[in-house]
């Protein structure tokens, strides 16, 4: 382990959250929980990204009082990237949820393995 683990605690938390979301995605049987895990994973990445821009003692990048020096504001790039990312994540979760609704309407269950078993049975008969 390197020296910066405790200085970078925000990023460490993001890494742990990423792992938890990933585990949810693999382990949960319920589709809704899988989607929540996906969302957790995404927001962990955004937290990871946003930590990059933060600089202690500087303020948000909105020009106030005509001050335009680098010393006054944090790095605006990560904020912009995360903004883009949030849009992506909300569209993806809407799509996943609508897929869930369609699957439930047809098979009345949320377990993906059960659904595939049912499909196989359906085709045999």
């Amino acid at each position, binding site marked *: 382990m390197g020296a910066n683990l405790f200085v970078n605690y925000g990023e460490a938390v993001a890494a742990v959250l990423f792992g938890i979301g990933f585990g949810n995605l693999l382990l949960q049987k319920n589709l809704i929980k899988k989607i929540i895990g996906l969302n957790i994973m995404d927001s962990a990445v955004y937290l990871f990204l946003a930590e990059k821009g933060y600089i202690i003692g500087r303020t948000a990048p909105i020009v106030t009082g005509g001050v335009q020096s680098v010393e006054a504001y944090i790095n605006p790039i990560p904020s912009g990237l995360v903004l883009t990312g949030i849009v992506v994540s909300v569209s993806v979760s809407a799509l996943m949820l609508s897929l869930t609704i369609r699957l439930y309407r047809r098979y009345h269950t949320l377990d*993906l393995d059960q659904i595939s078993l049912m*499909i196989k049975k359906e085709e045999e008969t």
Partner: protein
Amino acid sequence: MDFICNFPFFSILISLFSGTICSVLPGKAAKWVNTFVIVLIGAMSAALLWYLLGTGESFVYMMGHFPAPWGNEIRAGVLEAATALFFCIVMLLSMWGGRKKLMEEVEPSKHNLYYILVNLLLSSLLALIYTNDLFTAYVFVEINTIAACGLIMIRQIGRTLEAAVRYMIMSLVGSGMLLIGICMMYDLTGHLLMSNIQESVTAIIEEGTYVIPLVMAIALMVIGLAIKSALFPFHAWLPDAYGYSTISSAAILSSLVSKGYIFLLIKIIYRVVGFRIFHDTHIINVLFVFGLMAMIFGSLSAIKENDIRRMIAFSSVAQIGYIYVGIGLGTQVGMLASVYHIFAHAAGKALLFIAAIGLTDVSGFSRKFIDLTGAGYRNKIAGIGFTVGSLSMVGVPVFAGFVSKLLFAQAAVNNVGKMLPTLIALGISTILNAIYFMKTVIRIYTPRPDAPYESVAIGKEKLYAVSIVLFIALNIMLGMSSQPVVDAIHAGLEMFG
């Protein structure tokens, strides 16, 4: 700057905009818009390719008023233009070949939505090809993923819905890893533009301060893209998605979508990390091993399969394995073989899918091999198309697959350490390929005395026949006159470095 330098930008924007336009048009008009846009972009890419071969230099194009490290950029070289042209051709032919099936399998009121998806998919592919910025690549990867999911589930039966869910879960894991890799890369280098990142990466390697996170960042990006392009252990969604979606979707997905990610991966290897540095990390060996496994296990699964379309889908797994083996060899020749195989596989696999649907249609819509007996006589053009595609996949001379296998063998010989496993796997995989494809070809040309199904005349489905003939021509052209293509790829890879 010549006016022709605007063409990459025009092609991305036109396809994006046509997606928006299709949302207010009825299905028929959307169909014409789609065809027109693909042809237009293909023509522009061809002109650009001709121009670039003339000048022999790549160029960057500023997206906005701000120069390199501040604004977005796209970049065009010979390889980019050639890939764009090729993708346009394959997409157009796939759309033509699957049009009749599309009319049957998709609700009429949702046709224009299908064309929106295809247009946006094309624009995202073009953006992935031309981009010079990692974050832009991420955004368009997402568009590509969602549009591909739409293509899978446009035919709404249980199998495709399930496959769409599995596909989304897999790809989103991949995108998450890609994004976190991009974040780390940004953190270490402070740039998002590929050329600037490469300078910083070289500096980091020389200084030796951040080598561990750098390797991790590269690994995350590569694994993310490998997951998205269905490398061997991550292919669970693939057979159902390719096997049950409507046929144009299957052709486009297998030949273009996964290839878009691989193209981005190659671009990252050359333009972001640098070939030398990438070669020195051990990620390359991981890719190599998984590629070998994919070659063999994909073919084995295909042999076991009793369903023609799922068999072709499993064959895709094996072929993607070939491409990764080429990358994993870590030589310039291996990379060349991989890029050539992207083309060869795209042409061959799309042809196989399109031909397979013609065969199943004259066999009572059954995909089981037993019912396909004699299908080659009932739908002649589809039978010929399937045979050509199979021969190309097996690697018979004259067809595209032969050249790529030759290039792979050449590349393997150049690399002493990895020569033996590559050649062995290549041999085994070719034999397995031959077994399952030739089995099918023999089956469709075995006469059937009782003749329970009616045959179809070629003149009845003109568009379908045209698309198959053009696909066959494309395959033979790639195989016969491979030298110009190889030269162009070589020049393009030189421009990357």
